[in-house]
């Protein structure tokens, strides 16, 4: 999964639905660790800003 930083509002909704704790949020950024990610697509589905896409 990949975060499009220009669209991301850093709201953290993705973190709440991630079953494997692959997502990190700081004051300025959201990052997805693709080594941990299982491609379940939960984050992509709930992202209100549509800032998450498939791919690395």
């Amino acid at each position, binding site marked *: 999964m990949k975060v499009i930083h220009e669209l991301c509002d850093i709201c953290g*909704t993705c973190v*709440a*639905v991630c*079953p494997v704790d692959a997502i990190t949020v700081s*004051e300025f950024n959201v990052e997805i660790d693709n080594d941990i990610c299982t491609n379940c697509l939960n984050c992509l589905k709930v*992202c209100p*800003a549509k800032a998450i896409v498939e791919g690395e």
Partner: protein
Amino acid sequence: MVKDRYDIVVIGAGPAGSVAARYAAENGASVLMLERDREPGIPVRCAEGVSHNGIAPFIDIDKRWIASQIDVAKLTSPNGESAFMHNNGLGYVLERRIFDTALCALAAKHGARLITKADALDLIKENDKITGVKYRYMGETREVKCDIVIAADGTESRVGRWAGINTTVALRDIDTCVQYTLAGLDLKKDTCEFYFGNEVSPGGYIWIFPKSDSTANVGIGIAGHLSHEKGPKEYLDEFVAERFPNATITYTMYGGVPTAATLKEIVRDNIMLVGDAARQVNPITGGGVVQGMIAGSIAGKVAAEAVNQGQFDAKFLKKYRKEWDKTLGNTQKVMHSMKEKFLFMTDERFNNLVSYCKKIPSDKFSLKVLFTEAVKGDPKLMLDVAKSFVVSKIKLK
């Protein structure tokens, strides 16, 4: 001077965290709050609607953080019919930025310390026991030791996960939300509005919370599993284009609201979870400010008691869980079952519900009446709903 050891470290200075900090400090504990952002309350991720009875126990009402007073709720069904609710008690639309800072100031007054721009990175563990928090402050990694961590780090909570607690929310139990603050409107300042329907806002609703007679928070939450190609922004844009074609957007905000029951585990040895992090949100209204403050007050008191008695294990901290369930947790469970009903409600059912409510004299029309009617045909749930209104004197939202 910030010390390198406190009895309690609270992560997150929203309403749940700052109320927890305040009650812990007031009851004799030394408390440090860590806030990731540069100021509590920002960025605002909230519709800002609360009930007077919900917040009054925690802070003296102050005009500086009240945008408007709400006396009327207007519910609109998919076919455009509206029912008006007048006796649900006084409500406010807040200025969260000022409100959250005021709550922190209150915690500080009782002796709690706050550091802003302090981003929690991990829990410190010694022999598997939580003994502190590692955080980043102005580019520097710091450590603070403590006996209890209170995790109040919101929907995006990771602190609970670091402690090994499963905090994952199912897609159907999170609402994906977008909100605009709109200007250039012509509104009744005392009326909040709600719009329902599967074409309008699947599995959720659209809200209008006026902040003045020309500005309002206008937002939408839709159930996570119903958000596909068409997401909350598309639904909201359609609504705004029709209802407020000439409005100007002064603020755009995205966010997620857990609409689940409280997490199974909200305490472990040396750690407690409060607020959105514990999923302590009304699953029907999505309201979490008052819920978080109530949970925070219970957690703060229990944490201080734990400090005074030198007992930090889950067994002792479970007092918080017990008290929470009695106060609101059990009610939240019933509300969650009701929300499941709402998820499957057809537009026809919404229309009938609003038609029914319209016939009730507006001074007799309350949430209790609405909910009881909504779950008609399910005797067990009706009973649970009735009971939850008896047990909990706390107002919804």
